[in-house]
């Protein structure tokens, strides 16, 4: 290795051996700085992508009708298309830095404000799906691991593998067929009955409907949320159950679990406290990794249930060839996924002292 770098490395290692908070802070800063080039690269790619899309951006804006060369030049100047490409990219970054993610061609509203109005719907759905997946997935995995090799274990894992293999858009249609069409129990689409109207306060329908004080509004919101939650939560649920089982199996064979058993602690305490706490470390990572998958799944789920969130918005933007929305939307979602992944990394460091000290 180049000696110059070696010196640097020794310095950094000293730093790592410093106090707790110090290394943690360093870890946070390093992890955050690493994200900047990633985000720039995504911005660059969306910038290039929008130029690769067939169709002239001016024609997209003005329609097919002919316009005079002067108007054309004016348009080009307005959009900055008469500038060299590198200048256009810098301008684009400058706009992003000022929170300008472009303007929708079809609604003429800023992409960022549309995103901000629709995002709570997606977040509410994703959050409920994650809670559904964690609340059912972790116990299922623990039960399967403690009853390893029994019929119960095989059934649980069989169901989990089926869920893991599920085409969720079809699963959604099946649930609609059964619960909405045949049993008439749940509504087919939307977030709440049209009967109820109130100004969004938080953007989260469950909270807003409670705040609105209208009879039945909350129940209506819940009944609209049930099927989408199940659909979006299915794959995370299966993944978490499988991961919890294998993590538990690994931990249950460890010496400290045998010690805890030998001390005469109740099986509940051994499994619940000693084993589960350590088994949860990889599970938390998996939950974190599901965030991106959840966003992808939300696109399909929202599309099936006409859920007015980011997913529906993006699919419609493609159908309408509203490329600024697609560009800005993808950038914003990637940004959110990146930030959540950092938070998960940090949480991982907090949960697992071994990682914190090793780095």
């Amino acid at each position: 290795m180049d000696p110059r770098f070696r010196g640097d490395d020794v310095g950094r290692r000293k730093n790592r051996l410093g106090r707790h908070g110090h290394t943690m802070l360093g870890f946070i800063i390093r992890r955050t700085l690493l994200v900047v080039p990633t985000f720039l690269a995504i911005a660059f790619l969306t910038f290039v992508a929008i130029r690769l899309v067939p169709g002239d951006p001016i024609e997209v804006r003005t329609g097919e009708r002919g316009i005079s060369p002067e108007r054309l030049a004016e348009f080009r100047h307005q959009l900055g298309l008469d500038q060299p490409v590198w200048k256009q990219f810098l301008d684009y970054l400058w706009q992003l830095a000022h929170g300008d993610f472009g303007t929708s061609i079809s609604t003429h509203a800023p992409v960022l404000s549309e995103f901000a109005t629709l995002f709570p719907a997606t977040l509410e759905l994703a959050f409920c799906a994650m809670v559904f997946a964690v609340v059912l997935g972790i116990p299922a995995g623990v039960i399967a691991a403690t009853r390893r090799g029994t019929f119960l274990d095989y059934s649980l894992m069989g169901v989990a593998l089926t869920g893991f293999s599920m085409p969720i858009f079809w699963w959604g249609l099946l649930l609609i067929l059964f619960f909405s069409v045949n049993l008439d129990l749940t509504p087919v689409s939307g977030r709440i009955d049209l009967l109820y109207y109130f100004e969004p306060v938080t953007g989260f329908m469950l909270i807003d409907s409670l705040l609105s004080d209208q009879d039945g509004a909350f129940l209506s919101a819940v009944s609209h949320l049930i099927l989408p939650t199940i659909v979006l939560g299915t794959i995370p649920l299966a993944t978490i159950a499988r991961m919890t089982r294998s993590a538990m199996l690994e931990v249950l064979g460890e010496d400290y679990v045998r010690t805890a058993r030998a001390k005469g602690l109740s099986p509940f305490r051994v499994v619940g406290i000693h084993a589960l706490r350590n088994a949860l470390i990889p599970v938390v990572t998996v939950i974190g990794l599901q965030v991106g998958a959840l966003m992808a799944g939300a696109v399909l789920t929202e599309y099936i249930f006409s859920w007015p969130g980011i997913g529906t918005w993006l699919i419609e933007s493609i159908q309408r060839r509203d490329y600024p929305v697609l560009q800005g939307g993808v950038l914003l979602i990637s940004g959110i996924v990146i930030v959540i992944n950092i938070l998960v990394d940090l949480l991982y460091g907090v949960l697992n002292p071994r990682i914190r000290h090793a780095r």
Partner: protein
Amino acid sequence: MPADTTASAPRVETPPGPIAAFFRDFSENRAALLGLIILSLLVLVAIFANFIAPYGPSEQFREFTRIPPAWVEGGNRAFLLGTDEIGRDMLSRLIFGARLSLFIGLSVVVASMIAGIVLGLVAAFAPGWPSIVIMRAMDVILSVPSLLLAIVIVAIIGPSLTNTIVAITVVYLPNYVRLVRASALSEKTRDYVVAARVAGAGTLRIMFITVLPNCMAPIIVQAALTISNAILEAAALGFLGLGAQPPSPEWGAMLASAREFLQSASWIVTEPGLAILITVLSINLVGDGLRDALDPKMRRS
């Protein structure tokens, strides 16, 4: 060694070779074996679709639209699984669809695996900027949610079956690159690699002939997972109208046009989805079996 020595030598219990051990472990797993049987049947159906399918995938029988499956009241023996909204035989379309889905899965896995192995080995053996560029590029791909990335790529290059394969290949590339790089980095410092280098092996030889075979186990497991995910994502794209285009009998595309018949002719919706589920499930069963058989930690002995 003379031949008679081996013949007359007392039979000693020799440990089975790695391949024999693998097959023993794999076939002990009954679920994996079941998955393998179903998958083999599906592959046969896909290969011999021309001979098995009673009709062509786009053949229309105008007077037989929305005929329910044969075992339901109003069904017709001529159309075992019923017909769709324009009178095409569901069974024939599903059979030809198997060909498409398995083809997509296989193409994606071959393309992303080869590209991933090359990029991953380069990243492991060329520290400095090639490694940095490759790994940061993979970070970028990973930070966009998978289906969303595929949607964006398809939105740019246009919806079609080929473009679906291209888009999904890009999405799964980082998994291989990271996997190959990580295992190559840990293998690189082993004695046998050093020995090969001392013996005068060039870098290319060390990369592909010395190190690569020892990194294959996790790659194979990843391949099984990639095939099933690729089939799911291709179907999702088809369902959104961004993948294979009608009248292609791709299962996802079949579901897209069937949505409106959920109430009146539910079999048009249930059958293609069931086909996807069975295919993906059987591949995942095989994948789980592969993982358990290849992962020494999970091995029972």
